[in-house]
Structures are given as C-alpha cells and as structure tokens.
C-alpha cells in the first residue's frame, strides 16, 4: 500500500509539468497545478495509511 501511494506521487509532479506546458493562461494553469498537488497529497495519505497498517500488524517496530 505504501508503494501504491509513492507511485501516485510522481504522477502529481508530471501533472504540474503538464500544466506549465499546456496552459499559458493563469487561471487554468493554477487550477491544474492545485489538482496536481491534490493528487500528491492523496498519494501521501495512501503511503501513510500503509505505514499505519504495518504498525498494527507489528506494534512497536513498524516499518
């Protein structure tokens, strides 16, 4: 689960690059970059959840 989240995060980075290249106007570019950041945050949350699941199965020594 942690890896799933970490795979999603670079997708957010590439979305932010796509926003720079595809949208010259400020409003759509800002909206697209905010969406890219939202994707990264979702990936981070999934990765953190993966860390918590490991802890529940192995308390005191979560990895």
């Amino acid at each position, binding site marked *: 689960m*942690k890896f799933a989240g*970490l*795979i999603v*995060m*670079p*997708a*957010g*980075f*590439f*979305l*932010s690059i796509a926003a*720079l*290249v595809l949208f*010259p106007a*400020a409003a759509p*570019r*800002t909206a697209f*970059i*905010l969406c*890219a*950041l939202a994707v*990264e945050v979702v*990936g*981070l949350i999934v*990765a*953190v959840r993966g*860390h*918590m699941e490991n*802890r529940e199965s192995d*308390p*005191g*020594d*979560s*990895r």
Partner: protein
Amino acid sequence: MTPVNPAPALNDSAIVLDLLLLILAPLAIAGVALVNVGLGRSRSAAQALLGNMVIIATAFIGFSLIGATIAGNIGGTGHIFHLAGKPWNWLGEGPLFLKGLANAPIQSQLELLFEFLAVAMAAIIPWGTGADRLRLSAGCAIAAVLSAIVFPILAHWVWAGGWLAQLGVNFGTGAGFLDPAGAATIHLLGGLSALAVVWVAGSRRGKFPKEGFATAMPGHNAVYILFGCLVALVGWLGFNLAGASLWLHAPLTSLPVTALNTLLTAAGALAATYAVTRFRFGKPDASLCANGWLTGLVASSASAAIVSPIPALLVGIAAGIITPLLVEVLELAVAVDDPSGAITVHAAGALLGLIAAGLFAPQPSQFLAQLVGIATILGLFLPLVYLLFLAINRFIPFRVDTDGERIGMDLHELGGGAYPEFVIHRDDSYR
C-alpha cells in the same frame, strides 16, 4: 551543455559581508545538532552527537567528490533538453573534484561554500528523527546519498540556473521558484528524508504498544534543546542574509529587513506555540516551544528575504500554531515516531514558508512558481529518497538490533555512555 545565465556580480563589500555571514551559518547546524541530542535519550546522547559530526563530515566529502559537479553553479554550464519549445536545464556540470576552485570567481566560491553548509544541514535532519535506533553507519550512508546525488540535483534546479529557477523566464511565473535560504533544498528535502527514515527504520521499541496510547519518551536534556535554539538563531541569520545576497542578489540596504523578518518569524512562532501549549496542557511545554521556534526559523528561510515585517510575524504565528498540533497528530494519529520533531519542524515549516513567500511576494504570479516547486519536491523527491533508503537498508541495515536498543546506542556503538557518572533509569517499556 549550455552556459547558464550569469549572475549579477557582487561588489567588494557584499563579498566580505557574505563571507562573514557564511562563517556564522554553521551555528545553525550546531544548534539543530544540540536540539537533536537533547530530544533523544540519555543513553544515546554521545552516539547522537558523534553521529551529527560524522554525518556532516560525510556530507562535505560526498558533496566535494560528486555533488558539486552535479550542482554546478550559476555562471557554469548545464545539461539542457527542449520540451514544448522551452529549455529545461536539468543537470549542472561543475568541475570534477572541485578542480580549479581557487581560480574561480569569488562569487562562485561563496555559492559553493553556501551549498557545502546547506548539504550538511540537510543531512543531519533525518538523523534526529532516527534517534535511539539508527546506526552510525546508516547515518553515514544516508548522508552520502543525500550529499552526492539528491541534494545536488535539487540545488542545481533551485539555485544554479536550473529549470525551477528559470520558471519565470520560460513560463512567466513570477521570478521563478524562490528559495533564498534553503527552505526547499535543505529543510523540505531533509524533512521528507526524515519521514522516509521513519518508514524504513520503524519506531522505537515500546513506543506504540498494542493497546492504549503511544508511550511518552521525552527528551533527556531541556537545556541542550533550548540552548540549541538560541545558537541556531545566530546561524539562521547567517543563512538567511547570505542566501538573500547570493541567490536573490538582494542589495545590502535590504538585508537589515531580512534579519528583522527572521527574528519576527521566530518570535511569532515561539509566542504562538507557548500560547497553544499553555492553553492545551495548562503549562507551556519546553520541547514543543523549542520546536515552534525552529519551525519559525525554517519558515523564515523561505520568506524572510521576500515578505515585509507584518506578514513575517503572521508566518511565524501560523508556524507556531501548527507545530504542537502536527507533532501530536503525527505521533498519536499517524504512528510516526519522530523524536526530534523534524518532519513537523523542517518539512511543514518549509512548506508554510514557501507558500507564504508566494502569497506575499510583490509579483502576482509568484505563488504559482512556489506551488510548482513544492509539487516537484513532494512528488519526485520523497519517492526517490524512500526508494534509495530502502536500497541502502538492504546492505547497511538502518536499525540497531533489539539488544542494542535496550542497552542504548552509546554502549552498543561506542562502548561507553555520555554520562558515565550518572545512573541511567530503567525503561518501563521493556518489562
């Protein structure tokens, strides 16, 4: 390879001042090292401080042998590819092994000195998070990877004319990604590396019992922690002022305001954390106040040279409010064992400062450049660092064995304690 746009030349007085400021900057590293030691346990204190020193040494060597070549400098050359009709400078090309440094322009030498100090600071941040369980050899391996590969790439992108620095020229987003004193390159990278260390090494044994709340494992020396904060303030002034001069090319006349903003941000953060902990616990919490102070300083790394005094104070207050709350959330809700609070202090503080720099900057589109920089570091560097740490952990295990953790890192790794004349308390969590 294409020459990168040269930086405006510094005058003689700016050169002397920058050199003096960079001589002060190691105090920030010393302060953070003291805080790291104080927030750990007494039975690991000597190993923690020695670890900080060997990590700094490893970072210097790694950066000089490989990192400086990748980081390049503003007036040097860089590897560029073209996409959508725009140049993307993605990798620097400095001289190998610092060849010809003595004959390089003084400005390039000062920039390199700044990067040397910055990489040392970035490398010790995850060490504090891995306190009481991370082996010395693992700390050195982390420092080697960060200083030779990860930090130099980011430093080139942000400081040495890389694509993030050129966002303003190529895409009309403000003045490009602004990070005058290393909020992104040092603190956000260091804070995310700290999170990766927790994910790889796990929590301290007994920290999260099967039932009930997390076990409180308070730091062993509040004096180290609080004195470290005061020492760090001096170093931070050095970093923030030298960074403003070197990377933003700020005139000498603007530097006193940058110094004032640094002080205001730290003061606002401490006052806010003091108030929040006083309200929540009935008494102010010394270690959380120290963390709040440092979070304010980290936020000032991004914003002090860009914003005016009142916004600087507001940034500090925001930093001081989020610090105790986030420390609690990370420990109690997310099961992240971070003894030094590095993830909150360095990662969250840096994010706050970078966003504030975008919001309060004079250029209207600066906010967008800051968001792209944050998206880059969060989306690209956290997964990269985690995968690199996982790979290192296969060959150099991060975590000490159970017995080592029980007797303490000092006895296990050094053969002697930091306080041999004192009786070390038995830890209830091992009963």
